[in-house]
């Protein structure tokens, strides 16, 4: 794990990005503290995914600075990548490898010990029964779950999730929320690109809305997450009332 340089988990200062003549981001500034889970909202083409890809080191900003725990995403890519768990809109799996082999490849690329329990990660996401089956035969939801299992291997301090609920059934949405909440409760931060708030109800601390490549709004989530300390207090209060 890389030593932290900043108190902030995610920070953007005037981030702009141009594709050809079109400015997709026009100076986005935002901050996420460790333990904070933020939903990123906005219409199609507003620049949400572009911003997430910049934080994920997959695009370089045309102007401005983006930092993950104080590390510049454009210059300190290796330090940033060891902090990140990035779930893209597409699963990024290899169709001709089995579920277990896909995870084995991920574990090898992450430099994890050979004995790392891949089957446990697959069991957790509900794919224990198809460990040795090729991904080619998986449904979109199963592929999403496998991508989630790969994300779990990283033990990342920052989660970047692009429309994480797409193709997931009710149980899958609950599992996704459980994983996001766990990350937040453990002090990690998560930036979640969403089209609708409903699946993430009770998971987010805050929402940020992007419009025309700029931050248009930042407000507390309509159904805020019960943080551990708050939850403990609530439990103590409930106990005292009995």
């Amino acid at each position, binding site marked *: 794990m890389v030593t932290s340089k900043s108190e902030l988990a995610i920070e953007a200062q005037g981030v702009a990005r141009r594709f050809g003549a079109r400015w997709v981001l026009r100076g986005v500034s935002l901050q996420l503290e460790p333990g904070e889970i933020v939903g990123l909202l906005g219409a199609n083409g507003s620049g949400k995914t572009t911003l997430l890809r910049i934080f*994920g*080191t*997959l*695009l*370089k900003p045309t102007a401005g600075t983006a930092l993950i725990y104080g590390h510049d995403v454009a210059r300190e*890519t*290796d330090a940033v*990548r*060891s902090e*990140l768990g*990035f779930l*893209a*809109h*597409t*699963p*990024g*799996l*290899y*169709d*001709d*490898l089995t579920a277990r*082999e896909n995870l084995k*490849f*991920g574990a*090898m*690329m*992450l*430099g994890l010990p050979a004995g790392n329990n891949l089957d446990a990660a697959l069991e957790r996401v509900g794919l224990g029964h198809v460990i040795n089956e*090729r991904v080619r035969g998986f449904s979109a939801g199963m*592929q999403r779950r496998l991508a989630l299992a*790969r994300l779990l291997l990283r033990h990342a301090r920052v989660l970047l999730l692009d429309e994480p609920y797409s193709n997931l059934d009710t149980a899958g949405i609950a599992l996704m929320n459980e994983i996001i909440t766990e990350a937040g409760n453990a002090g990690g931060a998560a930036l979640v690109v969403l089209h609708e708030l409903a699946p993430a109800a009770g998971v987010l601390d805050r929402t940020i809305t992007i419009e025309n490549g700029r931050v248009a709004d930042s407000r507390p989530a309509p159904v805020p997450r019960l943080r551990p300390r708050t939850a403990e207090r609530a439990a103590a209060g409930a106990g005292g009332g009995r």
Partner: protein
Amino acid sequence: MAFRDDVRRIRAIAWKDLTTERRSKAGFNSVAALGVTILVLFGFALGPDAQALRDAAAGALWLSALFAGVLAFNRSYQVELESGALDQLLQYPGPRWVIYVGKLIANSLFVGLMLIIVIAVGIALFQVSIPAAWPSLLGVFALGAVGLVVLGTFYAAMASRSRAREVLLPLLLFPMLVPVLLAAISASKALLVGDMMHEAGAWIKLLGAYDLIFFVATLWAFEYVIEV
């Protein structure tokens, strides 16, 4: 420790590429079939003159390997582009050159196997007798294949970012391969006819030097073509 991790990553990429290729089968079968087909077409174009066939054998062999190789190099990144796997690959920590070396190993085995088939068919089709200096000829084929794979893997990575990658790859690759092909064809031809002018040695040295220069240059530059 970091180097051991890099070696592990190289192994992972080579294993993944070879496993997916072995299971899909379509890739190797089509590449080998294309190589053989081009060789047969060269045979038809040259006619029944046995001497003309023997004289053109080295050139026909290398050009068949080149055209079939382009298909193989494109496929090696096609697997990454399907379902966004390239983004995930770039998300892993570690230097970018490990991706290049991993793919280089997989492509070398893949193209090497294709070359064996093309050579076997070429020997039969072009009525070439195996020369006494066959170990040197084998060395030329190995060095030529390395040059082809080094540049092919590198330019396929560059072209993979473009929507017109199938067209772009040959346009980028063919001019850069001219020195490698020239040295490989000249050395092969000299060895096939008995190397009476003692020119094969110079061509082999030149081929080795090209391989080394291109390998070092592409290893260094890979990061700049794969990252955007």
